[in-house]
């Protein structure tokens, strides 16, 4: 680890003041500390933001506002989250381990970085995300865990979060604060596709702090779930995951939210599939058509072609399950 100074922030604006260009916010540290040890991250200062807002508050419109410092476990066990947004609780408990979820914050979870093996290998591999312009050793290398959607010639990494897949499905909004003031960013816009700048992962401006996540009211999200497919039964990142909420009326799909994990550089909101589903009579055939539409542009690599089929099947299974529970 490169030396740094440590400061514990008392307020959001104080934190933003402190951060500057070379500073980083410290949540639970479960990703940042690891990356600093690998010297992938070398902040000059750490601003501990775990003392900031961690409340989970019901909003007048029936939605929820979750403070960025809320621990992952706190969100997953919260009564209103479990009742109104079960897919979010399910996504969180599908991730990492209990110890990590007890440490990890909501803000940090959003900004956790890829688990691409070459990204992690500072000494031995080229990576455009770490060192822009250097090249990408994952292309043509071991890329079983890599993206099938939205990748670029510069980077094929995936975003590893489970929680974020649920947030993408829920039309969440990210509240951020910089030295120049606060703003809100739609969750589905928050993370970027790699294009030619894989090092820039979100729309956050330098020094901007995440202060909270707003979940809009979504009555039908009570019928929602999250399914994660992985190589071992627990404590493994998703190969593919699906978050979905389904609103059925008389056998028709009145509304639907669908997002995929493990397939792209960002939590992937399946807008094409949603469009294909909305207003249609629910059926296995429709689900398959929708899943195929979503994966139509998939570009499999040497080792990850299976994800196309796997994603389709998992989408169909999740939608079928929600339909049957209706």
């Amino acid at each position, binding site marked *: 680890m490169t*030396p740094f100074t440590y400061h*514990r922030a008392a307020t959001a604006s104080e934190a933003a003041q402190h951060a500057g260009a070379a500073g980083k916010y410290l949540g639970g540290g479960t990703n940042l500390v690891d990356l600093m040890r690998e010297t992938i991250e070398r902040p000059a200062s750490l601003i501990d933001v775990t003392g900031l807002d961690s409340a989970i508050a019901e909003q007048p419109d029936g939605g929820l506002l979750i403070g960025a410092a809320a621990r992952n476990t706190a969100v997953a*066990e919260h009564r209103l989250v*479990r009742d109104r947004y079960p897919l979010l609780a399910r996504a969180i408990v599908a991730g990492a381990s*209990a110890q990590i979820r007890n440490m990890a914050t909501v803000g940090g979870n959003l900004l956790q970085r890829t688990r691409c093996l070459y990204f992690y290998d500072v000494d031995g591999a080229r990576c455009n995300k770490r060192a822009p312009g250097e090249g990408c050793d994952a292309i043509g290398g071991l890329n079983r865990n890599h993206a099938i959607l939205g990748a670029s010639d510069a980077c094929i990494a995936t975003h590893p979060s489970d929680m974020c897949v649920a947030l993408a499905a829920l039309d969440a909004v990210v509240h951020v604060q910089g030295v120049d003031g606060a703003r809100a960013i739609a969750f589905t816009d928050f993370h970027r596709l790699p294009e030619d700048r894989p090092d820039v992962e979100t729309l956050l401006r330098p020094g901007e702090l995440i202060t909270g996540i707003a979940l809009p009211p979504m009555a039908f999200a009570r019928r929602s779930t999250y399914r994660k497919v992985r190589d071992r*039964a627990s404590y493994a990142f998703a190969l593919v995951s699906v978050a979905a909420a389904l609103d059925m009326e008389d056998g028709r799909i009145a509304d639907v939210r669908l997002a995929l994990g493990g397939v792209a550089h960002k939590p992937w909101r399946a807008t094409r599939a949603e469009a294909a589903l909305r207003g249609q009579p629910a059926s296995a055939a429709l689900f398959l058509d929708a899943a195929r539409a979503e994966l139509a542009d998939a570009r499999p690599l040497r080792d990850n072609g299976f994800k196309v089929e796997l994603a389709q099947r998992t989408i169909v299974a999740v939608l079928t399950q929600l339909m049957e529970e209706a």
Partner: protein
Amino acid sequence: MSINVNGAPVALPQDPRMSLLDLLREQEHLSGTKKGCNQGACGACTILVNGERILSCLALAVQYDGQEITTIEGLGSADDLHPIQRAFVQHDGFQCGYCTPGQICSAVGMIAELQRGVPSHVTDDLSDEAIAFSQEEVRERMSGNLCRCGAYNGIIDAITESVAEVAQ
């Protein structure tokens, strides 16, 4: 600036890079807490902070100013074992013993989570207030603690036997 480790105040390190794990092992010589990866991937470094289990290898010590920390040494000693430690011996819940302190601290934290009703990946009904104890729940909840010797069956048996006693 200090943290409380097993009831005694411990000075925070000068160097903010020091993890809670290294603080315990190298500064305080409380080497019961183990380092198996320093990557957050094995659970050997599990300790309790205010009763919650965390990974001390990913925790910067400075971040824990003022917190109450319990390590394996704080649970019981070889002459005066905690019930769950005793159950581990009885059910052969270890072989080499290296993952063991982490498993035991994790189990203590897990039992509290179960009692609090924190759901897990295998909890069927999220609306349940209380989570029923089952082998499957325990296996899922303990999955953050790797044991390469493969003492998993004995660990689950030990936890199953002592859960009632520990929960009090």
